[in-house]
């Protein structure tokens, strides 16, 4: 069995630092498992524990404070065969709290060593998330006001399936590290130790006392039964293997020639739930099939089920340079929410603009021509008005026929929706007849 310690970089910690002991125990555990340098990556955090990657001649990844678990997860997802070992102190634990919780919940096969010495050693002995309130540390009275975190209880509550707590002097730490490294899932080993360089200057911590503290906090021995489950990367592989690749959408060749010589902007002003965006999509698809160029912009509130829903569709026989609609040909007022959001359109409307107004929607006075439409009387419900308005637009502008819209619908909408949507389009066609002139 060969040591994985780096012959060219012997460890340099303060004399008596417990990190050095942890380092050697970890190396012994690697030897017990007969791991080779290329089988292991040490992902180290910041602080004195962040030196670990240097002292092994394995793969090494040293990054930013608190983020070691994130790099480790990326590496493990990409290289599932690697033994990925993360070393961090209680400092990294605190700053990277969100990542610890995520690692416990996610259960990627990583081994996390928390080299817990109750303070920030490297930066001057400030208090950390595990400093006892009674300790005297480099942060004045601040640690007296905060409750230290029990890493193991937090990890178990967050779903970690393998949790160990030991003092660095515990004779079975080596065995526990072996078990943690072998465990197929996220394992966390909370190793309590002393920092003679800083913490222990004012807080003596002889081995016996440390053992007593671990005893009092509770030893954790490994598998947390209620959290045992399939490892994330293996579960992921299973899902991957079963998924069917989404077809990459291919282009559509024009199937008819739309009757349009100038850019033509349509704005549908509706409300959430009225399928305004879907109607815009269909208009765009019909135009695509008619050989036109299209841009489509949608506007809706972040609250998905309420407020205005607006789609702006610009059709043009030439490639579209500017994707905004400066001068809409048609504004469709379907709901007051949408009208209120875009009052500016009515103020700017010219005589040549056509406003198609649902009979129950008020619009600001404007110079545009107005076509009032009683959707309700035609048996067209609120959810179908936007779709129906496409027929009115097509008829008044003569760009495409109802059949051509129907064709686009059949090619792009889910099949089970076809009968209902076709019925709306037919009703709208009848309605368009009555609206003429």
């Amino acid at each position, binding site marked *: 069995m060969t040591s994985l310690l780096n012959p060219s970089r012997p460890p340099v910690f303060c004399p008596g630092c417990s990190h050095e002991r942890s380092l050697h125990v970890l190396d012994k555990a690697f030897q017990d498992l007969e791991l080779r340098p290329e089988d292991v990556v040490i992902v180290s955090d910041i602080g004195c524990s962040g030196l670990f990657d240097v002292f092994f001649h394995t*793969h090494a990844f040293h990054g*930013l404070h608190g983020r070691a678990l994130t790099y480790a997860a990326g590496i493990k*997802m*990409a290289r599932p065969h690697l033994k990925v070992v993360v070393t961090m102190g209680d400092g990294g634990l605190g700053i990277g709290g969100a*990542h610890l919780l995520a690692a416990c919940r996610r259960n990627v096969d990583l081994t996390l060593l928390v080299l817990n010495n109750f303070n920030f050693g490297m930066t001057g002995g400030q208090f950390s998330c595990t400093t006892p309130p009674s300790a005297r540390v480099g942060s004045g009275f601040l640690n007296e006001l905060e409750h230290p975190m029990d890493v193991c209880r937090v990890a178990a509550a967050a779903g970690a399936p393998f949790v160990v707590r030991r003092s660095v002097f515990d004779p079975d730490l080596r065995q526990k590290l072996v078990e943690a490294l072998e465990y197929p899932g996220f394992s966390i080993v909370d190793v309590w130790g002393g920092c003679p360089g800083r913490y222990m200057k004012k807080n003596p911590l002889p081995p016996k006392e440390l053992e007593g503290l671990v005893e009092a906090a509770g030893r954790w021995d490994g598998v947390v039964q209620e959290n045992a489950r399939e490892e994330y990367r293996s579960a992921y592989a299973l899902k991957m293997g079963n998924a069917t690749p989404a077809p990459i959408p291919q282009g*559509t060749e024009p199937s008819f020639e739309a009757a349009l010589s100038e850019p033509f902007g349509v704005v549908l002003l509706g409300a959430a739930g009225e399928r305004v965006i879907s109607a815009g*999509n269909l208009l765009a698809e019909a135009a695509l099939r008619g050989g036109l160029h299209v841009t489509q912009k949608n506007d809706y509130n972040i609250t998905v089920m309420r407020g205005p829903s607006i789609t702006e569709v610009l059709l043009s026989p030439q490639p579209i340079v500017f*994707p905004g609609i400066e001068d809409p040909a048609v504004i469709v007022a379907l709901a007051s929410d949408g009208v209120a959001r875009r009052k500016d359109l009515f103020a700017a409307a010219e005589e040549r603009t056509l406003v198609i107004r649902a009979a129950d929607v008020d619009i600001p006075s404007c110079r545009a021509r107005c076509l009032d439409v009683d959707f309700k009387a035609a048996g067209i419900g609120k959810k179908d008005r936007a779709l129906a308005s496409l027929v009115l637009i097509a008829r008044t502008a003569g760009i495409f026929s109802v059949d051509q819209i129907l064709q686009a619908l059949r090619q792009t909408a889910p099949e089970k929706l076809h009968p209902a949507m076709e019925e709306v389009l037919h009703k709208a066609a009848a309605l368009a007849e009555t609206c003429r002139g």
Partner: protein
Amino acid sequence: MGRILMDGNEAVVRGALYAGCRFFAGYPITPASSILSGMLEALPPTGGIVMQGEDEIASIGYCLGASMAGLKAMTATSGPGISLYSENISFAIGSEIPLVIVNVMRQGPSTGAATRGADGDVHFMRWGNSGGLPVIVLAPTCAADCFSLTAHAFNLAERFRCPVFVASNKEIGMTRETVDLDALERPPAIGRTIHREGDYLPFAAQGPDGVPAFLPIGGDVPVRQTSSMHGPDGYITTDPQVMQTLVERLKNKVEAHADEFSFHELDVQEGARTLIVSYGVTARAARAAVARLRDRGTRVSLLVLKTLWPVPERVIREAAEEADRVLVVEMNLGQVVHEVRRVVCTKRVDFFGLMCGRLIRPSEIVQEVCRD
């Protein structure tokens, strides 16, 4: 192949797949979320990995790990997410980790207006890292550009081992438009240079602008990666000479090659004394404005920048040669304009910009040109 309706975010996904992206991680944020969902649909079924991070810091962290393990990686976010990416962007620059970062910009500052576009992060992308070393920023004007510039972004990230931004905008990312699939520019996909022979020093590079050859973490040869100042061997150093050599190389490897990827479109009109400079979706308003101005007999030239960083100095200088006046139009309160001023020095440089959440209109640019 014909034409297809697609928005800029879908085009980014398609471009990433085309370029050989195998790893994506992101955190949901308007207006970039549909890149996450698009990648999730496309990548895992073909053996790639997509992760949703617990936050943006984690998302980019996963990408850095996966990239060092040898996968082509991408993440996508918007301004508030770029803020959280910052420390890891510095890491990717300093430790030469290839990564594509899509920033679908939204109106700011801060959480700003999530559903409104702007180009307010131009300097933020360049300078939002500790140490101030260069990144590459490409700016699409439309969905077709989103495809090809994402593909270029991967190639540049791999070639130079550095983070490369695709600086999109809500108005591009979430605007659907017809794209001619036959006309898409498809740059051949390249990968990072792999170390083949001899002892491996992870940061040894040839010359003052060289890029180190790559070996993955998890391969047969142990590889060191570190965010700390390091020598060619990947061990921490405080040797001033080694440090200066490294930071200068990190700068040179990108900036000395800027002319090779100064993507742009230059539309010169004979005798024009005014040059408009624009980029992103605003460049489209500028193109429309230029057509109108020429129709009415006003002579004007247009430079559309598609590489924003490193500043394409030669392109700007040459485009402005004949001009007495340069008008820079941006969807912010003035960012690229400072670079243009720096480059053209003695010429008059005017600025027009808005950051109110709506597109700058061609008519407004026409007016600014005529204001002369």
